């Protein structure tokens, strides 16, 4: 666990508040940092994550935009090249489709295409995660698309502590970084130190130790994995939960070390089940820890269907602690 053990009384903050704090601290530290997005100023975003920022930093640094995701993403690319460090807020991760050209053909490639001459230090913050009864166009977890693109970095925090430290690193990074926040976790509380700290992009975190099986999980699936690990412990199975925290760069070393120790692995992610993030992580494990594995790597993700509105249907599409426990027991049995 990377939370400092020495800290005796640490504040509890929600994940949403931790993100706001990281942004506010970075905006105080560096006047080049600013935020662009829809309904982010007085409204503080629809999730209220940015409440108060416009009051502190003014409308020149917390800008309400028109509903023009391709346009203001493009503006951020240009601003990042020319001396600012923009953070772009895309309200729902489902809307990143509108920004793919600007993110992939421009932001991701400009450094390379210019032979290293221009840089694009920007952050795209957006959301992911289902079960909010928001239906097929407001519930997706589409981060796999960005992971596939060289030139981008991709961050998925799973705790308030990580969220603050990773957001600071993302803002200070010289590259375009996509930062995915699970909207169902905004109210999740956890310890967050007041001081300035960063978590490097590319360092996984072992969220729980265990000897029998490794569960590599991202974002809110970390919470599901931890819940499952607790239940598995009662049944005598030691599950180690590894959170990559950044999907690119990917900390293969930590993942592989864990799997080499446990010899079994489950990979969890809330993206669509097929051709997603889980496939890459499972492949890395199956390629590089092949001779250590006792059982095939198991993938547990969202069902490969558009996300339905009706509550019983939607609930059926996301992994639960029970699904994970069953799979782990079968693999360890």
């Amino acid at each position: 666990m990377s939370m400092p053990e020495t800290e005796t009384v640490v504040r509890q903050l929600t994940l949403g508040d931790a993100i706001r704090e990281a942004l506010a601290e970075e905006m105080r530290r560096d006047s080049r940092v600013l935020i662009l997005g829809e309904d982010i100023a007085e409204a503080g975003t629809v999730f209220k994550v940015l409440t108060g920022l416009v009051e502190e930093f003014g409308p020149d640094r917390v800008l309400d935009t028109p509903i023009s995701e391709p346009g203001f993403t493009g503006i951020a690319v240009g601003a990042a090249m020319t001396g600012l460090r923009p953070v772009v807020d895309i309200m729902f991760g489902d809307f990143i489709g509108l920004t793919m050209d600007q993110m992939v053909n421009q932001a991701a490639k400009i450094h390379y295409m210019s032979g290293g001459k221009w840089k694009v230090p920007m952050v795209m913050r957006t959301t992911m995660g289902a079960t909010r009864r928001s239906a097929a166009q407001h519930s997706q977890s589409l981060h796999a698309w960005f992971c596939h693109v060289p030139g981008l970095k991709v961050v998925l925090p799973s705790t308030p502590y990580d969220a603050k430290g990773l957001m600071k690193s993302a803002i200070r990074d010289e590259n375009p970084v996509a930062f995915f926040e699970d909207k169902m976790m905004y109210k999740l509380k956890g310890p967050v130190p007041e001081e300035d700290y960063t978590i490097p992009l590319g360092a996984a975190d072992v969220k729980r130790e265990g000897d029998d099986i490794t569960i590599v999980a991202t974002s809110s699936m970390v919470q599901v994995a931890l819940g499952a690990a607790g239940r598995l412990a009662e049944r005598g199975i030691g599950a180690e939960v590894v959170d990559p925290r950044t999907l690119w760069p990917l900390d293969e070393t930590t993942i592989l070390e864990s799997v080499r120790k446990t010899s079994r692995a489950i990979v969890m992610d809330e993206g669509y089940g097929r051709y997603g993030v889980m496939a890459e992580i499972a492949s890395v494990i199956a390629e590089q820890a092949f001779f250590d594995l006792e059982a095939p790597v198991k993938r547990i993700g969202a069902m490969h269907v558009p996300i339905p509105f009706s509550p019983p249907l939607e609930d059926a599409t996301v992994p639960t602690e029970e699904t994970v426990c069953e799979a782990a027991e079968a693999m360890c049995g």
Partner: protein
Amino acid sequence: MTQAAPTRTDAALDRWLRMYRRMLMIRRFEEEANDLYTRALMPGLAHLYIGEEAVAVGVCEALAPDDYITSTHRGHGHCLAKGAELDRMFAELLGKRAGYCKGKGGSMHIADPDTGNLGANAIVGGSAGIATGAAFSALRLGTGQVAVCFFGDGALGQGLVYEVMNMAALWKLPVVYVCENNLYNEYTHNSETLAGDIMTRGPAFGVPGERVDGQDARAVHSAARGQVARARAGEGPSFLLCDTYRFMGHHVGDVSREYYRSKDEESEWKTHRDPIRLLGEALIAEQAADPAGLDAIDAEVSADVARAVEFAKNAPYPSVDEVDDDVYA
């Protein structure tokens, strides 16, 4: 209203009363939806159309049953104006198997081929291509249908809208772009999001435009009629800007609104610019209706709404095995 009262014929009278009834049906439907949310009986959120009824009803009254519409996240009014049934609407809002989309779509995705409803859409501006494509089909297949694309002032921020207007003009497609200008994109006033004169945006892409008081159902209707006739006659697309206002929050959960708009502004619109009251009062003033008659309509509509809500509450959820049906046709 400085506008002269429309000429009264029997057909016109029927139409006005039909429009009045339909607007009231939308109003009562939305009030009920709000109530379901408040009592935690509705999953998720909904974006209510209260205050804007004259737009959907005025426009759809100019359409034939097989004409197409596309709708938005604020779609209940469009769906009902185009002929959707109350019971299946409520059932969809509650995620029930009997809903228009078997519960899979919910409030923001109601769609119905039988009434020409290509679907509500939760991507702002996202349906502009679909409506334009439907008009393209109508022209190619020679069916004489017209497509109406409803969207909000916020959708004017999406470049897609201009791309498809340009093609609609080039190809003379029978499509009418109806912009519901309710002044806000969620919690942001559109003075912060719109530059230039928006009435020139259509013409800049070859789409002639007209602006109308969106609280006057008959004015909306007559403007829409002209544009629909133009489209049907093969003269191409048009743009209709309707000035209107949503009386409630952006969605049912948006109850403290003072930080983005004043109570005075709201009460001004609610008191003086309610499209249903305006039509009712005008009909009474013109002796085209009497208060008792209008009350009777309200009683009928309210009873229909109450029955429909009961139906939806009692209807079953889809079975969990249906979750992966309908992914592919």
